[in-house]
């Protein structure tokens, strides 16, 4: 099966050269996706498909076009590639566009990252339905007073294979599986509002998934805890961001580390390599070799051999995310254009301990909209969570907002939890910031 996909990529590469491209990179992928949603006692939706597509980056007479298609009928594909080559010829040349320098391909690690579950085929329709049903059951069991309006259990899994072929000889294939289960519960607040919450878990291996009943229980417990939500006061205060929610905070800091943002002058971290951006607790590496990690890989989308590298060390900025194109424009050595997994140096204390220490604080459990200006570092985000009083979780709060500037915020990082969130490649722990602007009443 994978041989066929690699062959398809090779054929497309050969075809592109025959149609006049000087060089090209081809990516081919095929994925099986299965999703089951169970709601209030029955299957609500079941989706199953095997899907495929082909993408080409074409280098034609110093010009560049990137194209993709799901129409793989041989005649249609040949015409598509011919048109793409002609399209590339109409635009301006770009001296920075070419395949990666081959030395970047070298040194591919010989690790087994355990991304592909050999038992994928043993997961049946009944298994999936059973999980989804168990999620709802777990949610209902956590709601003895019957305040749940609607409880949903979902499962989704994919089995994906991909192949990359460059006309300079680079080839790579990849097989991966992932399994996700999630629960969603909506509850009736006596005042008429219907707060909802979710819980989710994922794994590369289905045997390693959390128990679905537990996911349902967590979703229901979280939703029930939202009853009686009030708006808190506007203030400068200590803010703890739960590990699951903290990925949103981190992504706003890491996005502007891309070489494209730097080169286009859209990064508040431009020119700050080596400088102190955060408190010493901001210490994060990019680690592509996490076993079973959601961002793990042996090579990136350009074929660059993956290796771990530091992003922040004790608050100091150590590396940018540099792809080959913008790396050439900036005269910077490529790292990789896309993050793999983040590995934070974790703290030693749990969320509860951190809240006990903080005494008076806002615990953020979710964000609602908002945005961050990557050019200036200003951000303003809708938040919900709980007021923390006397070191313990007190009333639920919502309809509130958090704002500031990242160049100040991360220096106020006062504590990091021991709880990296396992269901995201960002793997953020709980983050505690002091003196942050909260808006409400």
């Amino acid at each position, binding site marked *: 099966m994978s041989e066929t996909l690699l062959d398809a990529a090779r054929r497309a590469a050969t075809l592109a050269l025959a149609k006049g491209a000087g060089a090209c990179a081809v990516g081919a992928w095929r994925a099986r996706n299965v999703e089951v949603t169970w709601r209030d006692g029955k299957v609500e939706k079941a989706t199953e498909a095997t899907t495929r597509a082909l993408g080409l980056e074409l280098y034609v007479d110093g010009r560049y076009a990137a194209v993709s*298609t799901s129409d793989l009928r041989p005649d249609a594909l040949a015409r598509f590639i011919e048109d793409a080559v002609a*399209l590339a010829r109409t*635009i301006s040349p*770009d001296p920075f566009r070419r395949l990666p320098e081959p030395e970047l391909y070298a040194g591919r690690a010989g690790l087994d990252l355990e991304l592909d579950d050999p038992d994928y085929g043993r997961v049946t329709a009944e298994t999936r339905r059973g999980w989804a049903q168990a999620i709802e059951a777990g949610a209902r069991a956590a709601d003895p007073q019957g305040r749940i*309006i609607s409880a949903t259990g979902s499962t989704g899994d994919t089995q994906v294979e991909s192949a990359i072929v460059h006309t300079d000889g680079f080839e790579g294939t990849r097989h991966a599986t992932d399994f996700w289960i999630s629960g969603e519960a909506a509850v009736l607040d006596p005042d008429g509002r219907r*707060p909802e919450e979710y819980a989710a878990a994922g794994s590369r291996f289905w045997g390693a998934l959390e128990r679905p009943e537990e996911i349902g229980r967590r979703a229901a417990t979280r939703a029930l805890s939202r009853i009686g939500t009030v708006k808190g006061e506007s203030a400068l205060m200590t803010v703890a961001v739960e590990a699951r929610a903290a990925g949103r905070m981190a992504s706003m800091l890491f996005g502007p580390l891309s070489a494209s943002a730097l080169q286009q*002058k859209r990064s508040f971290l431009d020119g700050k390599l080596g400088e102190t951006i955060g408190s010493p607790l901001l210490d994060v590496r990019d680690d592509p070799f996490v076993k079973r990690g959601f961002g793990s890989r042996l090579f990136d989308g350009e074929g660059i051999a993956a290796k771990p590298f530091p992003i922040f060390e004790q608050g100091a900025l150590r590396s940018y995310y540099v792809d080959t194109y913008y790396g050439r424009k900036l005269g910077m050595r490529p790292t990789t254009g896309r993050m793999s997994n983040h590995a934070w140096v974790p703290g030693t204390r749990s969320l509860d301990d951190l809240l006990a220490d903080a005494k008076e604080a806002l615990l953020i459990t979710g964000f*609602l909209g*908002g945005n961050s200006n990557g050019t200036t570092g200003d951000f303003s985000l809708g938040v919900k969570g709980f007021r923390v009083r006397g070191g313990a979780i007190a009333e639920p709060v919502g309809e509130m907002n958090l704002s500031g500037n990242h160049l100040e915020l991360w220096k106020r990082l006062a504590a990091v939890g021991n709880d990296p969130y396992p269901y995201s490649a960002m793997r953020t722990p709980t983050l505690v910031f002091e003196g942050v602007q909260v808006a409400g009443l």
Partner: protein
Amino acid sequence: MAIGYFSRFGVTERMISETLTAALSRGGDFADVFFQHKIGADLSLEDGAVNRAYASVELGVGVRVVKGDQTGYGYTEELTPEALVAAARTAATIADGPSRPGPVALHVAPARASRYPLVRPWEEVRPEEKLPLLVDLEQRAFAADPRIRKVNAHLRDESGAVLIADSRGRIVEDRQPMTLLSLSCVAEQDGRREQNGYNVAARAGFEFYTQERLDRVVTEAIARTTVLFEAGPPPAGEMPVVLAAGSSGILLHEAIGHGMEADFNRKGTSIYADKIGKRIAAPFVNIMDDGTQPAARGSINVDDEGNTAGATRLVEGGVLTTFLHDEISARHYGVSPTGNGRRESYRHAPLPRMRSTYMLPGPHSRDEILRSVKRGLYCVGFSNGQVAIGAGDFTFYVKNGWLIEDGRLTRPVKDVNLVGNGPKVLEKVDMVGDDLEIDEGGWTCGKDGQSVPVSQGLPTVRVASMTVGGRGSGR
């Protein structure tokens, strides 16, 4: 009538009929087949040259089987009878009874007058014609202000078609053009950088790009970027908010539009679930969701279930009148579909979605509204928003705005998120201007992992109080 566009891919009535028969082989109530061919073309200008081109083709088909409010779905990129029947059999497993007959006869719907007639269809526009447009925008942006340091311009166009066939025997085809032009600038002043831009979009051909429209793109992009040097965050906390006519329609999209999508109400999870027929706003508040506006990005001739898209009144005289329905929710409520069943692509089953959502003009003038505010925020440009359907809390992010002091716009503000609760905010809409504008921007709505193009509009509107996510008390 015979199959038109999709006959080029070998799609026949017989193939459709066999697929629908397979789809109902286990006793579903209803089945449909959605064919899609979408050709996307993108040209981008960066660092002084149009030096990247992107092209994409999506060709595929999705088969859906509905049993009550249960959905089975399968899709494939292979438009062969075997692959279609296999996808149909996968979708059919949602039901588990005896088979039902497929359609007795299929009828291809006659062509209708399009809401997006094209003068210059994108299939006929060569890249050589598009390039100068981007180059011209860039040159004019640099010429307009010496502080401009980087300019990005991007032109996207889409062409292609969809075909929807269902177990009632209907076959509907629609061509679905789209175009979007964006101009983005980075400016520098005294070592500070600011970035912003402007974009326009429509279901139109190359003729959309008139000189007047291109002038506006440049003027707005420059103005919205350079004003940021004078702008700062507004104070934090609750205050009156005036929404400028146009893209402020994002308020409606988040505060009420999503909550009126009937799937949430069918499940009882929307804060509006039990509010039909009830007063939710002042009598001068009238809110529409409309698929009929000529060439609007959110307009559609038919939805992705083949139903004609009409103009749906969500709120009439301050009273909640109707939800936005797809086929499943319309059956559930025993009403006619409103033409809101939309999907991102053949890889997705349709859901109730908005089209162009706006408020009709009201009794107040813009000046009167601004003069009425002692101290508040005037919002002009937006980037994004989000809503929690059940709790009703929503946000939208203001990229450009002004402080209002003693009825006058005083200093510009930027990068501030506004937070409210849908029903509470609608109650607090206490002035509505007479100056409705439908925004021309390229808005995209996301729900359940599916993106669809939408439009939005608003007259100048005053909300008595919202939480402004600024900084400091400012008092």
